[in-house]
């Protein structure tokens, strides 16, 4: 059972702050690192894999520092985001080389086991330069798993995968977590993270915005006030009627026409709106949610 502790860590590059006073603990099981692009996910993974020194704070694996400590790589398997691999090797040669560099007693056997695990046995003797994006991702996984590490760090592992490959990798990650490994993967897609991770850490603009199981994160997101723009046949009438209902928190008539509306209870509002419109004979022309994008969800999480 391994645990990565990030303790009040900041990391800046000259005058740009990439990670800002983040404290989190990554324990056994699958943890999803969720955040929009450029939020500092890759920087956090680089810190956790010993590729970056924290500007302030400390990053440790079971108490041992990760920076300038090559020995921790016996416990860590890293799948970097970047695509580049040793193109001139076959998949098998690549995984065997990784096993040798880990100093394993039987690199050939370890490589075979890892390759079988990620179901690449058929393509293992092809040169990596001929691999598809999904195959590259899988051979990277094999190279990270070859020494059977208790900790697995994956940077955007689902990028560029087709749905079938995605499902397979999700299954694999779930298995790794169920085996008691400490698995952390980053993603900017909530649905992806929800399907695999038991624990979710949300990072936005370098800050640790939220933490919890996916239920807690979901609730944070769905219980938030929803904003809509309505275009109707009689904006003023419908706005006043809606404002009388408890599911609506605020309504404003826009100068260019239409109602800007904030609903506090989305479920109730979605039933109330068509009923009230019909009762008062106001025709609904358009109902547009204005904050459905992930960014608005994130910005909500940060401000709460």
């Amino acid at each position: 059972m391994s645990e990565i502790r990030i303790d009040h860590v900041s990391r800046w590059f000259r005058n740009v702050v990439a990670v800002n006073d983040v404290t989190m603990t990554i324990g056994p099981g699958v943890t999803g690192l969720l955040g929009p692009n450029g939020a500092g996910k890759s920087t956090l993974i680089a810190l956790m894999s010993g590729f970056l020194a924290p500007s302030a704070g400390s990053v440790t694996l079971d108490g041992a520092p990760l920076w300038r400590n090559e020995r921790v790589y016996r416990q860590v398997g890293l799948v970097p985001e970047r695509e580049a691999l040793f193109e001139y090797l076959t998949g098998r040669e690549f995984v065997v080389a990784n096993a040798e560099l880990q100093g394993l007693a039987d690199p050939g056997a370890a490589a075979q086991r890892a390759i079988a695990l990620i179901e690449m046995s058929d393509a293992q003797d092809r040169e990596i330069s001929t691999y598809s994006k999904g195959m590259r991702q899988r051979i990277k996984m094999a190279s990270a798993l070859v020494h059977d590490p208790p900790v697995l760090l994956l940077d955007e592992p689902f990028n560029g995968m087709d749905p079938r490959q995605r499902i397979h990798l999700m299954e694999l990650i779930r298995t790794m977590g169920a085996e008691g490994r400490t698995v952390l993967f980053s993603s900017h897609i909530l649905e992806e993270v929800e399907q695999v991770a038991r624990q979710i850490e949300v990072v936005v603009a370098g800050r640790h915005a939220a933490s919890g199981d996916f239920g807690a994160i979901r609730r944070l997101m769905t219980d938030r006030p929803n904003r809509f723009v309505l275009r109707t046949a009689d904006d003023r009438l419908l706005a006043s009627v809606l404002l009388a209902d408890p599911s609506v928190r605020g309504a404003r008539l826009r100068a260019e026409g239409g109602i800007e509306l904030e609903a506090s209870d989305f479920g109730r509002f979605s039933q109330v709106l068509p009923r009230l419109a019909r009762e008062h004979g106001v025709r609904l022309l358009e109902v547009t949610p204005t904050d459905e994008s992930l960014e608005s969800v994130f910005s909500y999480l940060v401000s709460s």
Partner: protein
Amino acid sequence: MSTPAISRTIVRLGARSIFGRWRGALLFALPVVLLGLSVLARALVGQSDQGSRHTLYGLGLVVVVPLVALLATSGVLAPEIDDGSISYLLAKPIPRSTIVLSKLVVALGCVVAFATLPMLLAGLVLRTDDPSVAVGFALGSLLGGTAYCALFALLSVMTRHAVVVGLVYLLVWEGLLGGLLDGVRWLSVTRWSAEVADRVAGLSLVENLPLTYALIAGAVVIVGSGWLTGQRLRSFNLTGDE
């Protein structure tokens, strides 16, 4: 600090990466040119002190040795740093010094195969009467080649334009300024290597440069650059989007 060891896996990967690219072909071309010109010079002017000196120094030590070192060293380090695949070597329980040393072993192997041995052969072709010339230039190329490898390795981890910077350094410092300003000999790898050839073969390619100085300066460059390269490699940027 543990004693730096050499990883056979990294040496194997390094050798394959050099010969898997166009650099490999260039490495073969350089000694072919040197040997071809030597045969030509021998056939046209016979065994002459002048002819052998121009070929072995002007082409060999000044051009072929540094270029082989530059091609080999940048070939073994620069592409992996550029595309980030070196992270697969770095994320292993191996001392950074072992990674640098193993990479340098590959580059050094190239220097021996594509510079030192061709120099020895070219020397024997040009001066059959005096084998000490061949031995002197071969030894000189070994010192120069090793120092250049270490220097270019450091360059490869410091800049993404290692080949360009290396070429500019060779042309401007070693070539242009080294020819114009006498004092450059104190800070010129090529002139140190020429001093070795001078001593062994009894020539006078560079004046007023003690052999002891040349050897110590070469050693300082080799050890210093090697160490610095290892240090730099520790702060490799994984994400590449800094």
